[in-house]
């Protein structure tokens, strides 16, 4: 049975690819914690981890300063970058699939502009509001992002259904409107201008364990609620009507996917600002090498998004050390050429196929 063999080969290939992406992520995380203004050996990293595990003795002694740098600065930063990278990549894959539009990214239906409006408002009013250890900026950003998507959802609703095309268009319109408000506020920002611009570019310089502790549950809940519907999302790529014919309760699935993806994006933006490009290219990257099946695309995007954002963040804080570049600049500068290269290479492959 030749077919069955092809079948198994394909499955094996995907497993290997997933394993490779997992290793890539681990490697990125490991190199990120050891690199920086103060180089720290990997034995020391292991030592910090082993210290916390019962019944294990650290292989080497570790200095107090290094321990502080690792635990208070690098580990939360790497974990936050991983969670944000994975969240953005998964949200991007979800929106691209849901809207059947390769141009969709995590911010396409207004979460980022809503969050930005919230954040800028908090900065301008110098609000001292705080909750559970968070200042006004992340709280307002989170609330702004979720409010934006709620407005978009209700505006796009026609009777009991929410057509995805209307959702996308309503998202773009609301997004443009909110962006205009953000620009207006920025125009009058005055002394807060630098803070506002820097926040909007996004980055992990403010990483803390508190942010990690909040980000990770959102990332997990959001991711799982999307992964649960991976097969439905596959069917929806064939069009909503076809998905219904296959037995997908499309309206219900859309709600789950929107809630999941919005949580991912709102949490990511609230903790780290608007980091572009990861959510757009990572899913495409995976699709180019392994096809559009979401059962594979989602976990693979999560690993690659996490690894890529850890890597670019490490670059962002080391290329001009001790100064830091906003990570969004690096993601676009590294990601775009890589993506174009793959696109070109793929084109040749396609040509080869069709001329058979």
């Amino acid at each position, binding site marked *: 049975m030749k077919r069955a063999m092809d079948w198994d080969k394909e499955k094996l290939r995907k497993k290997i690819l997933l394993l490779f992406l997992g290793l890539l992520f681990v490697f990125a995380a490991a190199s990120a914690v050891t690199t920086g203004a103060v180089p720290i050996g990997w034995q020391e990293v292991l030592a910090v981890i082993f210290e916390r595990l019962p019944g294990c003795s650290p292989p080497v002694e570790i200095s107090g300063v290094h321990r502080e740098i690792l635990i208070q600065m690098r580990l939360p930063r790497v974990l936050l970058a991983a969670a944000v990278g994975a969240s953005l990549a998964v949200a991007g894959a979800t929106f691209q699939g849901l809207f059947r539009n390769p141009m969709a990214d995590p911010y396409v239906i207004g979460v980022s502009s809503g969050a930005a409006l919230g954040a800028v408002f908090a900065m301008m009013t110098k609000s001292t509001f705080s909750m559970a250890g968070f200042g006004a900026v992340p709280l307002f950003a989170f609330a702004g992002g979720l409010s934006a998507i709620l407005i978009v959802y209700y505006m796009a609703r026609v009777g009991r259904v929410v057509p995805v095309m209307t959702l996308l268009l309503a998202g773009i319109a609301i997004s443009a409107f909110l962006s205009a408000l953000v620009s207006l506020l920025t125009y009058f920002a005055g002394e807060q201008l630098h803070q506002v611009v820097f926040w909007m570019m996004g980055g992990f310089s403010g990483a803390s364990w508190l942010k990690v502790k909040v980000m990770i549950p959102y990332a997990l809940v959001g991711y799982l609620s999307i992964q649960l519907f991976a097969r439905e999302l596959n069917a929806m790529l064939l069009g909503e*009507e*076809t998905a219904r014919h296959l037995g997908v309760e499309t309206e219900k699935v859309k709600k789950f996917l929107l809630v999941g993806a919005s949580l991912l994006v709102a949490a990511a933006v609230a903790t780290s600002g608007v980091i572009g490009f990861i959510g757009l290219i990572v899913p495409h990257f995976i699709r180019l090498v392994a096809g559009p099946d979401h059962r594979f695309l989602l976990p693979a995007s999560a690993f690659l998004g996490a690894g890529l954002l850890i890597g670019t963040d490490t670059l962002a804080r080391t290329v001009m050390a001790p100064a830091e570049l906003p990570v969004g600049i690096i993601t676009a500068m590294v990601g775009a050429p890589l993506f174009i290269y793959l696109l070109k290479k793929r084109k040749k492959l396609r040509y080869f*196929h069709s001329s058979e």
Partner: protein
Amino acid sequence: MSLNVTVHNLKMQYNAHPVLDGLEFDLQRGELLALLGANGAGKSTLLRCISRVLEPTGGSVCLDGRDISNLTALEIARQMAVVPQEGGVDFEFTVQDIVLMGRFPHIRRFQKEGEREQDIALSAMEMTGVAHLAQRPVTTLSGGEKQRVIIARAICQQPKLLLLDEPTASLDIGYQYELLELAVRLNREKGITIIAAIHDLNLASQFFDRFILLSEGKVLAAGRAEEVITAENIKKSYGVPAVIFRHPLHGHLQVSIPKQQHGTGINKKGPAVHVIGGGSEALPVLDALRERGCKLSVGPVTAQDSGYQYASFYRIPLVEVPPFSPVSDEIYEAHLRMIREAVLVVVPPIPFGEGNLRNLQAVEQASREGIPVFILEEETSRERDYTGGQATAVISRLKKKGAFVTTDTDTMIAYLYGQDKYSPKEAETGGGNKG
């Protein structure tokens, strides 16, 4: 593996405009139903109500007596598969991925598609002839191949009811037949009830058993082809006059719509032309002359002759002969009288036998009386002469006396309307010249 469908008083409105207006019909298990009707008659809307993509504004659809509005999408998908009009897939799923999606309603959320699923998908792909494409991305396939992949997915869904919305619309003629043969096979071998919206009435009549003709959201006619595909129904639903006849190869009803530019041949201002009938070769000649507004007459033809049908449709005067009978003196005279009223008599490249030799003799008589004769020849008359040379002899005599000879109707029309650039002389193929 089959299912009956009951549609009761189904109503659907878009912005207060009724698309389905109290639709009512019953479909028994294992029936093969063609849904006919003009654009906008409600065919697609009906199919979408049956598949519950649309919620009707009134009435009900029942599968085996269960109202589908009480069923979940999964319960419906386990019984019903749909091949939609446009199956555009922009993402690079492989053929196999797409076909396996047909298993969606049958497997649980985290269940992997096992060997059983793969076998079902493979046999579906084999059935539609796409198994060899299994690993190819669908984006690289042709329209016909894509359509067969979508049908394989529907088969993989193992439905009891299959809805096809214009399945042949984007296919070439070869694929159209292949596809409908496949539909018939699924119906016969697996007993799947099939409803197909279809525009091509001739294909429909060839492949389907039962027909429903929709018009303005209502059932205009339902039943066998003979009850549904009638000239009257087609006029009512499509607004065009049609000729219904039986196909010479398979005997199924066929519909043909004549060109309408000039209406009927009578009451026209053009010259009076008589055409010798008695074979399908006369039809293009008649049609060309009618389009130019000639006042036509035909004869002699039997009631079974295609020329007879043509003449009756356009109400062109004709002389009729009983089938399989020689031309009697009476008919000969009637024919000659009719020829005399014309300014030109045309002899199309029809075959001649003992039965219609007298028609040629009538032409010869008319020629003697000074009526110009036009002989159209695609092949020499000898090859279609079944009179032992008598017909050829008459035609030779006609040519000698100055009959125009040409191979195409354009030259003839040019002559009639006096356009010099198509001088009949230049078109002569030898033998004859203008006397």
